[in-house]
Each structure stands twice: as C-alpha cells, then as structure tokens.
C-alpha cells in the first residue's frame, strides 16, 4: 500500500484572528501553527493502514519553509518521508495542481487529506485532485478499511451516513472518527530528524482566485439577560423583537 497524505500548516483552533497591513494580511505574530486537525486524522489512519498492510506513507505539504515543523511532526508520527512544494498555498486549484503533479509520478494507491483546511475551509482540493487524476474522490470519510484492492468507506451525509465500496486508487477527504490522533513518541521524534524531506519548486502557476483584503465579523450587541424566573418572556421576545419564530 503506497499512501500519500497531504497536510496543511494552519493556525491553532484557539487562535483569535487579527489582521495587519491595512487588513490585507492575517497577523501571524504570536500564532501557533499546527497540522490541520482533519489532516491529522488522515495521517493517523494512513499510519495504521501501513502497520496493518505494509507499504509506505509519504507526507506532502504545499507551503513555505515555516511549515517544516508541522512536516517533521508528521514524520515523527510515522510517515516515512516528506515532500514540500515550496509555494504559498493561496488558491485551491494551484495546490491541487501541485499534488496531482507529484501523484502522477508516483502511482499512489491512496491519497488522503483532511476534508478541509481549517483556515480557508474550502474543502475543494481533494475533489480537484481527483478530477485531475481521473479517479474518484470521496469526502467526508469517517471510516476506511482496505480489503485487497477495494476500499470500504463510510461517508457522512446530511442527517446520517452511507457505506461505500470503491476500487483503488482513490482520493479521500477525512474527518473523525476515522482514527485516533497519534501523538509522536520520543523515538519517533528522534528518527524524524533524519527522515528524508525533499523540497521541490512548484509546477505551473494557475492561480484562479486572489484575496484582496480581509474583514472581521462585526461584534454582536450586548446580551439581553432574562431572569430565569421569567424565562417565558424569551419566547415573546423571539417573536416580537427578534422576529425569528
């Protein structure tokens, strides 16, 4: 089993977003970067599958040099080697193009990634990669088992889930509970330092979207407190004042 896991380096989930440079940039000062939580699920399942079936796990990141701590952590968790495409991941089509270019050279059985990156929430890259490679893409995947050359998958749908069967190769966008997050141990951290991390330059420059500026959501007005003894008033206010029921 030859698995490619695509990971993002994103601000920690507890980050309070602030802006800089006249609202044209996100302020990175003091922000802790982590592996995308959904990508972490994908990586953990990939390492489990490797332990079960043999094979290799390669980690791929499209990002600048400051993403390397996140890549090293992925190697510490159990990936065998890593590739970083040296470019700022600003547009989904561009990122997908980089992943597809590497996938075309390497014939992976599975290409896993998170259902979406938690910064831009596009959830597009797996679908575009699947299209570029001419293979199915499935997301969000909650369970994944491999039997021979068939993948048995549970996918979340609105109001429930569905079970699917598909032949390999596949591109999958993953989410919990596909695996328990793996935490690197000391041996993993030590061996990660010497694992191969190849840096390649991007191919093509098809950027189809461009962010011109950012905005923060307007603050909500003060919260109107209703004493518990008069809780019923809430329902009246929702009808007459807020007009939502």
């Amino acid at each position, binding site marked *: 089993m030859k698995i490619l896991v695509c990971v993002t380096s994103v601000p920690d989930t507890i980050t309070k977003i602030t802006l800089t440079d006249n609202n044209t940039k996100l302020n990175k000062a003091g922000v802790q970067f982590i592996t995308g939580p959904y990508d972490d699920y994908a990586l953990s399942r990939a390492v489990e599958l490797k332990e079960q079936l043999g094979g290799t796990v390669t980690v791929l990141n499209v990002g600048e040099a400051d993403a390397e701590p996140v890549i090293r952590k992925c190697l510490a968790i159990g990936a065998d080697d890593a590739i970083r495409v040296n470019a700022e991941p600003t547009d989904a089509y561009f990122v997908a193009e980089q992943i597809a270019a590497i996938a075309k050279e390497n014939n992976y059985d599975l290409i896993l990634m998170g259902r979406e990156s938690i910064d831009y929430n596009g959830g597009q890259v797996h679908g575009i990669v*699947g299209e570029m490679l001419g293979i199915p893409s499935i997301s969000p995947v909650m369970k994944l088992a491999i039997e021979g050359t068939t993948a048995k998958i549970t996918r979340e749908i609105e109001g429930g889930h569905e079970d699917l069967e598909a032949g390999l190769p596949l591109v999958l966008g993953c989410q919990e509970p596909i695996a328990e997050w793996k935490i690197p141990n000391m041996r993993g951290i030590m061996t990660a330092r010497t694992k191969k991390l190849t840096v390649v330059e991007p191919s093509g420059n098809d950027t189809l979207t461009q962010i011109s500026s950012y905005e*923060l*959501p307007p603050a909500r*007005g003060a919260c109107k407190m209703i004493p518990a003894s008069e809780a*019923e008033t809430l329902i009246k206010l929702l009808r007459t004042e807020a007009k*939502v*029921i």
Partner: protein
Amino acid sequence: MSVLIFAELEEGAIKKSSLEAIYYGSKVAEQTGTTATALVLGEGSADELAKAGRFGAAKVLHASETRLNEGNALAYASAVAEAVHQEGATIIVLAKSSLADSMAARLAGKLKAGLAANVIELPDLSSGFRVKRSIFTGKAFAITELTAEKKILTIKKNTITPEETDAVAPVEAFKPALNDSDFTVKVTNVEKATGDVLLPEADLVVSAGRGLKGPENWGIVENLAKALHAATACSKPVSDLDWRPHHEHVGQTGIKISPNLYIACGISGAIQHLAGVNSSKVIVVINKDSEAPFFKSADYGIVGDVFDVLPRLTKAVKEL
C-alpha cells in the same frame, strides 16, 4: 454567457437552500446583464420545477434520469459541466451542502474555474469579480477576486432573503451523457434520519452540551425543538462521548451552520464551538454558570438550570 444554478433535490423536492441559490443566481444575472438557468438532476415533479421559476430562474433544465436520482457527486459534476457548455454559462452557483461541496470541486477541476466557497454576499463587480466569503469557520471573511473566465460560487445559508413571485419559467428536457466511469463508487448502505429537519437546512436550531448530563436527558431538548420545528444539534464533547450522532456536532471541526435562531443549552461556548455557529442571526444562551463565555457572544441569555428552563420554554412556544 449566463448564470447556471444547480438546484438540489431532497426526497423529490428542491431544497430550501437551493431556492435561495436560485434567487441569488437571478440577482447575479441581473448584475451581469444576463439570465439565470436552474438545473435539476433526477426525477422531480412539475410542481417542484415550477418553484425554480418563481424564485428567479428564467429557464429550467431538467434531466429526468433514474440514474441521477441518487446524489452522485461525480456524475452530477459531469452533468453540470455539460450544461455549462451547452448554455455558455460563465458563473455557476450552488447552495453549500454535503453533495454540492464535492460537486463544486470536481467541477472546478473540469472547467478550470475559480471557486469561492462559503460566499455570504452578492458579488461586487465594481473592480473585477469579487465575493466575500467566510473563512476560519466564520472568524473572518476574505474578499476574494475570481480571475478565471469561469467562476463557481457555493453560498452559505442565509446569504440572501429570497423573494417568491408568480413568474413561470419554461422547462427544457436535458439529456446529459452519463459516463460509466462516474458510477464506479457503489453505495452499499444508507442510514439517514427521516422526518427530522436536516441540520444544515434548518432555520431554527436547538443545541445542547455536557450541561445536559447524559443522553437520557435529551428529551427536553427534542421537545423544545419539536415545538419550534427546529433541528437538534450538539457540542463536540457530546458527540465524542457518543451521547449524540456525529452529524449533529456543530463547531469548528463539525458542521458549520448559519440559522436564523440558535439556542445553546448547557454549552459553555469554547472558541471552537462559537466558530461553527457565530454566523447565526440570533443566538440564545441558557446556562446555569453566569460566567460562561458564551453569554458574551449571545443576543439573549438566561442564567438558569436547563432542566427547569427548557420545559417552560416548550410550554410557552405551544401557547403562542
């Protein structure tokens, strides 16, 4: 040049979010001096197809194919791409959904189109084609310019308030070429809650957290939801503990919702939870801890015991 809107069917009816997308698409068509075409895939009744016209479509394309009755993202994306070429469409609008997300990405790959997800306003055409989209799960917005000739927008719920007219749009039969290669993923089993309001589609949501103390206490949440015709949701710890199914989990790593009303019961309001719900129009927080951070992001608050307050609210709703 035209605007093409994908109208998604749910049990034979056009989803409410898709009616909003049709209306949105008709407004984009007005802005760009062209017309809006709605595309319906799968068997749908004449009554349902007529709705597309009443919400702003100038024309309806309908592919009444049994093979398209199941929402297959790959086959759907191929069919939409074919309709885009047939109609000469340059702007494609989809209401964000589990199916539409997967379709939009495949479509962007097929058409080499710029894709903006989670759009929350009509485009600004004063300089190029710019949209405002929600990023960081609603913690910020990015003004994004789409520079490719073809543009795909997925819009969030409550982006625009649709208006229904008595307009009648012609319905044309559409016969997409169905490729067997789009049908290689086999669905072996589907488990889906029936009869309930689907959470991503719901206008009103009643949500509860660990303050409910255990899954056996969810009756008071469901009763209030039923009285309001609301969907039920839960916090991440509740889904992690298996008190409630994962598809009810709202928050940064769960479903992101933007209903008209979100009632949070016994949820403290961690930043990751707020991220998934902060674009709700009105937020009500009920918590016995007056220091719960959620009160700072709420419009209405009650400091009280959910076991006392919820049944009284249910009764008050029934007496309206």
